């Protein structure tokens, strides 16, 4: 199972470790006016750019297939005369490290790591450019990145939700629920879902779509849905009105008569 997963993973992240990717990275660095050194060897110690990279065991197959493991070290030196590739090891720089796979000593004799040491002068600007490049080329959501680094480049201010901690999300969801509960009482668990569009093909749709995604999306959509994701949806799941309070019914019976009660109940249904 792990081997199969690793085999498929190789094809997915192989692109990061291909010559084409490295060439693209060199081009990006050259166009950005960065000074950099390409050095054979594992990444230096430093601040991880990703919250969680893929575990080392995943890389074993990749390495067997001959791919090098590519890392990027954004180095902000305290002393510009210290060689880029030495500053992090000597503790004379702040180093930000990116790699798809977490480096571990057990990979040392199996893999060929290559590290791009990038000279960073304007920290915020350089990290922002690097994050954008990584997010784009690796198809990563912002939430995958280290909060500290998102904060440095100002993304936590621009989009606070991407920097929320798990605890904060728990509190936020609780608050959303409480706000809804305060607006109207919780309906009973027997919705009529009057305006829910039910389709006998609904199950088939999602299965087909998810299958399609997994299988590199070769076939046409089976759902035929033209609706945009951000449009207001029409899937409101309405609960029926709550049952009438017997005390209210009794009051209506007393004040208005039995017919009133009958008509009220019929109307309420």
């Amino acid at each position, binding site marked *: 199972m792990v081997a199969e997963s690793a085999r498929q993973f190789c094809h997915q992240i192989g692109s990061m470790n291909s010559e084409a990717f490295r060439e693209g990275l060199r081009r990006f660095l050259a166009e950005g006016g960065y000074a950099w050194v390409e050095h054979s060897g594992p990444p230096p110690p430093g601040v991880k750019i990703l919250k969680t990279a893929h575990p080392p065991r995943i890389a074993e197959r990749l390495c067997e297939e001959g791919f090098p493991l590519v890392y990027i070290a954004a180095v902000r030196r305290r002393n510009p005369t210290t060689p880029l590739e030495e500053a992090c090891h000597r503790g004379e720089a702040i180093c930000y490290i990116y790699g798809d796979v977490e480096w571990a000593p057990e990979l040392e004799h199996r893999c060929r790591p290559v590290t791009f040491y990038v000279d960073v002068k304007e920290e915020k600007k350089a990290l922002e450019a690097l994050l954008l490049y990584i997010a784009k080329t690796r198809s990563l959501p912002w939430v995958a990145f280290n909060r500290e680094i998102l904060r440095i480049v100002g993304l936590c201010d621009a*989009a606070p939700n991407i920097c929320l901690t798990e605890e904060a999300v728990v509190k936020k969801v609780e608050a959303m629920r409480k706000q809804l509960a305060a607006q109207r009482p919780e309906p009973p668990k027997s919705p009529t879902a009057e305006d829910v569009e039910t389709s006998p093909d609904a*199950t088939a749709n999602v299965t087909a779509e998810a299958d399609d995604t*997994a299988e590199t999306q070769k076939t046409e959509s089976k759902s035929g849905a033209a609706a945009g994701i951000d449009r207001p949806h029409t899937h409101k799941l309405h609960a029926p009105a709550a049952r009438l309070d017997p005390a209210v019914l009794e009051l209506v019976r007393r004040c208005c008569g039995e017919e009133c009660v009958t008509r009220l109940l019929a109307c309420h249904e």
Partner: protein
Amino acid sequence: MSSGKTHGGPFAEVRTLADIVLESGCKKSLQFLNTHFDLCVLAILIKSIPAGSMVRLRPEIVRRLVEEVAAAVGGGDRERIRNALLKRAGEMMAQLRRELGDSAPSEAYVAKLAELFFMKLEA
């Protein structure tokens, strides 16, 4: 609440956050599901990424999660809710495919789902 942290990888945290929304919101209250329907569907889709290194949506997991949500808040109308959730999930995936194109890697789909998830959480 099952933890999304059982596997590493860059998508582990968004999976955990989707799990929080599902367990603390969508499965707790019909009102929540009703008001934040798209957020719940996005959480289901994100949560359906299986543990492990592969980033791909698994229809059987989508179906199971939808069943769980429908069972938790659906009461007597569970089937209708299940169908609505599945239908919306299908629509979202179709829309994403139109936006991203056939050649986009599956990571791009999950990244887009995550982006939409945070937009809806913000709303």
